[in-house]
């Protein structure tokens, strides 16, 4: 009989990579690695990728495995796990985008419900997005960076930390900058 389809979870290589490190460096169990990695992936994926969270977590585990093989002495920190999750999700987004570019629209797609916003609205948003970019480029440097961070989703406290401003300064820059930005965008004929 030719055996074998031996079965062991994918984490085995990862586990082994960890287990073969010198004793004081030996880290945690797989479950301890998997949990924060899964949480980071779940947090990072855009809504349209949510159903793939589990698969992406597995891919992230494999990447971690390979990274540990390359650099067995690398300290394992949450930040490092986060970086693995980050690159995994960005790569998946890029891959999906490439696939979309190469797939012809299918016949059924016309019958499927279109998620809001509709194509026209989306096009308007994109145009408005370009107008926002142009307005940002014309803004004073301090406001430009603060507004860019705000538009990326950061809160005022985060902006103050990243730009090394006081909270009050960041608040002023963002508040005033947003008013000016909206005025600039609308002057270009767009209403986001």
């Amino acid at each position, binding site marked *: 009989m030719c055996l074998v*389809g031996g079965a062991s979870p994918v984490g085995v290589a990862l586990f082994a990579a960890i*287990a073969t490190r010198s004793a004081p460096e030996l880290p945690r169990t797989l479950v301890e690695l998997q949990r924060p990695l899964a949480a980071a992936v779940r947090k990072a994926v855009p809504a349209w990728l949510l159903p793939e969270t589990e698969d992406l977590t597995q891919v992230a585990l494999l990447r971690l495995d390979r990274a540990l093989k390359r650099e067995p002495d690398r300290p394992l920190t949450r930040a490092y796990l986060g970086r693995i999750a980050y690159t995994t*999700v960005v790569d998946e987004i890029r891959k999906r985008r490439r696939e979309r570019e190469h797939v012809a629209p299918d016949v059924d797609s016309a019958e499927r419900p279109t998620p809001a916003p509709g194509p026209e609205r989306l096009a308007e948003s994109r145009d408005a997005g370009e107008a926002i970019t142009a307005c940002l480029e014309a803004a004073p440097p301090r406001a430009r960076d603060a507004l*860019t961070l705000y538009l990326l989703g950061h809160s005022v406290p985060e902006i103050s930390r990243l730009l090394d401003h006081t909270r009050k300064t960041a608040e002023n820059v963002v508040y005033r900058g947003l008013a000016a930005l909206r005025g600039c965008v609308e002057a270009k004929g767009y209403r986001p």
Partner: protein
Amino acid sequence: MKPDAAEDLRAAFSARPVRQEVNEATLSMVWKAVSGSTSPADLASVLEQVRREPAVAEAWRVARSVRAELDDEEPARVERQGKVVLGPAHWWRGAAGMGIGTVMAMAAVVVMYVVPMSENRGPVAMRADVLGIENTLVYAGSVDRDHAVLRWTALPEGTVYTVTVTTDLLARVARGGALDKPEWVIPGPQLSALPDGTVLLWRVEATLPDGSKHRSATFDVVLR
């Protein structure tokens, strides 16, 4: 104007179409910038790229989400444990010095099948269990390239299985579909280009008679 009133601006900024994908160096810079570990000049440079290229902005958003998740957790490094638990690949390395007969005999004794699903657990719980229980890592087997058999636990009569095999770099090797038995032989030609020692990853998706689908964890096996 309150910042909260600017969600429309945020939405429009994120709707900009991607023109050029981000390269690895930029991805790395974005991560550092979001983590607050860049100089002001580098941060300004990354933000400039964010404005210029929507893909960089997208990467930033992903990085920010991850950082937010990490910041919610305790900031300290993950604690390390002194306890040594040797994984199966370690066993395999130890077995490398043995004769192949010994290794195969060991393999025959400890062959482990796909973890069966219990009645009250869905596929998510199944996968989580497999990944989470360290003591399940008891065996790293090999397959003979001339007859590479994969076997797993049978599910109820009428279940149809699909098996996907990749390398550990996730390159597709082979796929077997519409299988009515819990085993599959990877076609030899699909393995011919792979050197001995290649780690193959494989996973089973089972479609039960009631139409529900269940995935196994991903397993690995060494090609010999």
